[in-house]
């Protein structure tokens, strides 16, 4: 049992930390979020050059052979920096499917350029009616004249409008909610019949509603075995749940630090508001929530790295934790900043919105607590 980082992990933490500190201040983040694509392609190239887009991929696939701990390190720092570049959609979601089940040829086509930073990708993992059940897939793929024809809708697809590759789960058999019969397709964004409604999300990121209206794909577009996609999808969503939990812990820590700092400088009644015991105790509660969340994150990341049998339970634990403790920390940070906390101008509001968005993703706190209560 050991909580220390190895040399590579230490280097990674240093380099991501330096990037956030030196090259990604809040003004940069806001500018990137407000740009046409919603992120800065130059920043994305930097991620690729530094090897961050290759973290969870094997060296054979052109990656650096990292795992959940390395992803945790990056995502926690991205949380602190409130990074809007679509790391989750590319590396964790689409990349998570590709590295698990893509053929060598498919990896050449999609994974290699994604790692190189030359291709944007995503995974359309949920549907308008599905809420948090990833097996709830109504989109159908029917074999007609040698091609699979896809019809259906996908909801709130992260990086949806920028992605050149969209991994789409569709039903080749079975009824809605069944785990059997889900097939994963590599869908080029240029495919005929693919419709987008692109939008910004409340946390300054981008997403799209996707419609598939008779999208025809050759069988070579299937990733993995037909009908067998659920296990892959499930594993990728677990990765993503852990990744956004790490991001949330980074955000919580930033909110905690900034709130304490603000309370030392903000003068009311002739004294810093941080001298009031009513506020001090609330900030201690925030600190405790951060420490507890940090601890669970380390535990869950280590179990996931080991492929332990109870890793799923650990991931539900940390997601429940950041869902509940994260909401408390976010709301308290806003409250203790007073009017400034609800101003668009200040970073506090934007941390809070991203934290809130994370709370809604991949199962909210109640959903994960239900899993744990079984």
């Amino acid at each position, binding site marked *: *049992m*050991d*909580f*220390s*980082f*190895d040399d590579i*992990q230490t280097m990674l933490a240093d380099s991501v930390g330096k990037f956030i500190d030196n090259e990604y201040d809040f003004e940069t983040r806001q500018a990137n979020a407000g740009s046409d694509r919603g992120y800065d392609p130059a920043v994305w190239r930097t991620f690729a050059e530094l090897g961050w887009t290759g973290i969870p991929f094997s060296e054979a696939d052109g990656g650096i052979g990292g795992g959940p*701990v390395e992803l945790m390190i990056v995502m926690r720092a991205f949380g602190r920096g409130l990074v809007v570049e679509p790391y989750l959609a590319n590396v964790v979601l689409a990349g998570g499917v590709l590295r698990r089940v893509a053929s060598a040829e498919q990896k050449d086509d999609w994974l290699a350029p994604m790692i190189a930073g030359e291709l944007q990708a995503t995974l359309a993992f949920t549907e308008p009616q599905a809420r948090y059940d990833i097996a709830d897939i109504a989109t159908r793929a029917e074999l007609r004249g040698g091609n699979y024809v896809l019809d259906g809708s996908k909801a709130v697809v992260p990086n949806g409008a920028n992605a050149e590759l969209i991994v789409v789960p569709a039903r080749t058999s079975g009824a809605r909610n069944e785990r059997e019969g889900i097939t994963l397709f590599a869908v080029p964004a240029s495919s005929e019949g693919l419709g987008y409604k692109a939008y910004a999300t409340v946390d300054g990121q981008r997403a799209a509603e996707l419609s598939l209206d008779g999208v025809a794909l050759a069988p070579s577009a299937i990733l993995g075995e037909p009908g067998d996609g659920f296990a892959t999808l499930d594993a990728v969503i677990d990765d993503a749940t852990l990744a956004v939990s790490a991001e949330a812990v980074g955000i919580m820590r930033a909110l905690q630090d900034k709130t*304490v700092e603000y*309370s*030392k400088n903000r003068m009311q009644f002739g004294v810093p508001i*941080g*001298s009031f*015991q009513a506020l*001090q*105790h609330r*900030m*201690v*509660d925030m*600190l*405790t929530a951060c*420490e*507890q*969340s*940090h*601890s*669970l994150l*380390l*535990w869950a*990341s*280590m*179990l996931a*790295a*080991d492929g*332990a049998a109870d890793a799923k339970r650990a991931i539900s*634990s940390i997601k*429940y*934790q950041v869902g*509940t403790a994260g909401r408390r920390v976010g709301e308290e940070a806003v409250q203790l900043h007073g009017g400034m906390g609800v101003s668009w101008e200040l970073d506090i509001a934007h941390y809070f919105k991203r934290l809130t968005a994370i709370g809604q993703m991949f199962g909210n706190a109640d959903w994960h*607590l*239900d899993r*744990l*209560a*079984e």
Partner: protein
Amino acid sequence: MNVTLSDDELAFRDELRAFFRDRLPEDIRRKQEQGVILDREDHIRFQKLLAEKGWAGVNWPVEYGGTGWTPVQKYLFATEMAEANAPDIVPFGLSMVGPVIYSFGNDEQKRRFLPDILESNVWWCQGYSEPGAGSDLASLKTRAEFDGDAYIVNGTKTWTTLGQHADWIFVLARSRADVARRQEGISFLLVDMSTPGVTVRPIITIEGEHEVNEVHFENVRVPAENLVGEEGAGWTYGKVLLQHERTNIAGVARSRYRLKKLRERAGRAVRGATPLTEDRNFMRKLAAVEVELKALEYTELRTLAAVASGKAPGPESSILKIKGTEVQQAIDTLYLEAAGYYALPYVPEQYVLGFPDGERVGEDTETRFSLQYFNNRKASIYGGSNEIQKNIVAKHVLGL
């Protein structure tokens, strides 16, 4: 980073497991299971077994007879002790005054006191709180006046846990009044309870038991050689002691054991009732406490790892105290709820060894659940109330 135990650690765990399985006396095991309060002799017998094995000074340095264990070994020890449902180590000697004496005492005091603490030959108790000095401990009024070769101690200490069993008491007393800060001028004294002028009076707590006491000092002569460290610097030593107390206070391993047992009970049809596992509300609350406890377990491990790398337990230990006691009390509440109507019968006479099963009200120890709930409201009050802990964290960790 990894959570796996090394082969050495696994072997150590097996050794611990075998020890508690083979050496924990059967009558003590049964008392623990049946909710019977241990007497003085039970505690001493158990702690002497640990001492024989060299495991009594869990946190002590090797040079004073301690284990020198790594954080993981300490974690395993606490885990296996809890899993065997062995008694808690009485903290006042081994966890509190022992570390103060080896950290701040002189060589003569170390020779005189440490071996008896390690071997549980002497039972210690704590003389900190006073009727007028609770959270505001520095307002304590017990006086220690120097008269050449001894301190004459006068005053009253209260909430003295298991003082009725104690041979010695460590006392914070004011030895000087002309000080700039109230924290100055307080001395740390070791007092033999058999000295004339010391009297112990029981205080009965909410659940009806005699666990704590008031200790009165009337012109008690304490030889000058029983002063620990510098005269007037006792507050500093006392704070170190409290930080040790706070890390031990979290009780993670015991809480985990209790949650495991509660989950087992929830799956049973007690008296033919629908198992509590069917009660969604209950199971969700149980799961939420399990998550909080798992987080605390790793917060404690992180703290222990920091201590092992050379840091003393700092103000962060306050977080362990706050969270640890919150989790304990949440578990107490779940047990209370699990008991249903059988939280009501007040039948302390049942909690003796050999009470006939046929005459018992309620199953197992369920009529103790409410008593435990009431008794353990103390957890967020003692050792510096949780509100005081928040003051400490705000000041020393957050710099407010």
